């Protein structure tokens, strides 16, 4: 029964997934990535059987944070020794290592047991879309992105912008560049009187 043996190999083989993190929130995308690392998307999943997959995350330097989080969100660390506490805001961490924020968000999403370090070994993070061929040849499928990417106004064509339905027309006796004259007006010199 050679076929049964091959089916067994195929069922427990580690597949490789690709995830594009450009313009994606790292905390939300951790919810999407972690089940693939644990193997929870498979029907044969069991906590005692090691069936997790590899996930290759690309474009981690282009991740997006919500509102003011780049400035306000802080990552903490303690070495265990007295005076070993340190913290850094998210933009500072991202500046030093563009894969670090994604790594920490996935790490904090996984439950703190003995499996965590083994799962993190199967997460491959890359700041750009440049992946070594050894890894890229293993990739079989990609994971769906978490949120839609917003389109900038300069990415639309001129026809789309001009022919888009307008909500109002310019009113009667409206001077179009009236504000420019207001802005170019010179400031009066301050006179110091004693």
């Amino acid at each position: 029964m050679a076929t049964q043996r091959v089916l067994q190999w195929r069922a427990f083989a580690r597949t490789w997934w690709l995830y594009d993190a450009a313009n994606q929130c790292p905390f939300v995308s951790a919810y999407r990535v972690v089940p693939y690392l644990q193997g929870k998307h498979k029907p044969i999943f069991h906590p005692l059987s090691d069936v997790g997959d590899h996930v290759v995350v690309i474009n981690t330097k282009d991740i997006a944070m919500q509102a003011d989080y780049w400035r306000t969100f802080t990552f903490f660390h303690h070495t265990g020794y007295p005076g070993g506490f340190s913290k850094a805001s998210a933009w500072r961490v991202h500046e030093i290592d563009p894969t670090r924020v994604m790594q920490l968000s996935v790490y904090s999403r996984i439950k703190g047991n003995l499996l965590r370090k083994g799962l993190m070994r199967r997460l491959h993070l890359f700041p750009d879309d440049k992946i070594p061929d050894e890894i890229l040849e293993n990739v079989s499928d990609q994971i769906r992105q978490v949120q839609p990417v917003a389109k900038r106004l300069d990415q639309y064509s001129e026809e789309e912008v001009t022919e888009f339905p307008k909500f109002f027309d310019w009113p009667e006796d409206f001077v179009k560049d009236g504000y420019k004259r207001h802005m170019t007006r010179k400031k009066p010199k301050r006179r110091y009187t004693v």
Partner: protein
Amino acid sequence: MLRLIWHNLRAPLHSAKSATSIGSPSILPVVQNVQTRTFSVSSAARLKQIEQVTDGNVTKIEGKIMESERAPYVFKEEEPKGCTLCKIHPYLKYTDVLILSQFLREDGCLLPRQVTGVCWGQQRRLETLVNKAQRAGLLPQFRPALKSGKPRTNHRSNYKWKRYNVYFRN
């Protein structure tokens, strides 16, 4: 001039109605009206662009009449009353840049309600949405000029935490 003359002709009729003067209407109110009225010859409707030309000692300031580009693409309403945003699209998102850019000047400042004709609540909402879109870098054309006078290179500021991608929930 025709306009001014027409106003002058109409003035005694008004004065006659209000004062109910007996006999022939006097010339005095006509003269008073001329003094108070603003002088204008050209027609006061339509979009204008002011141009300033200098030839030696003479400076000429001219208000040129333009045809609006967006006239054929404006919504045609049966009842042109009330706020257009409330009727058509009351719940905008910050990613709807094709709509938000209609309510902006070239420097990214929001136009007043007297021009756009939206209600107070929608104007308030537009302020926050435009702010969000600017923070996310979705309106690179509509930004104020730099103080140094140099042209902008990036669609977002290069300052510390401002150079990375940002998104908003709504």
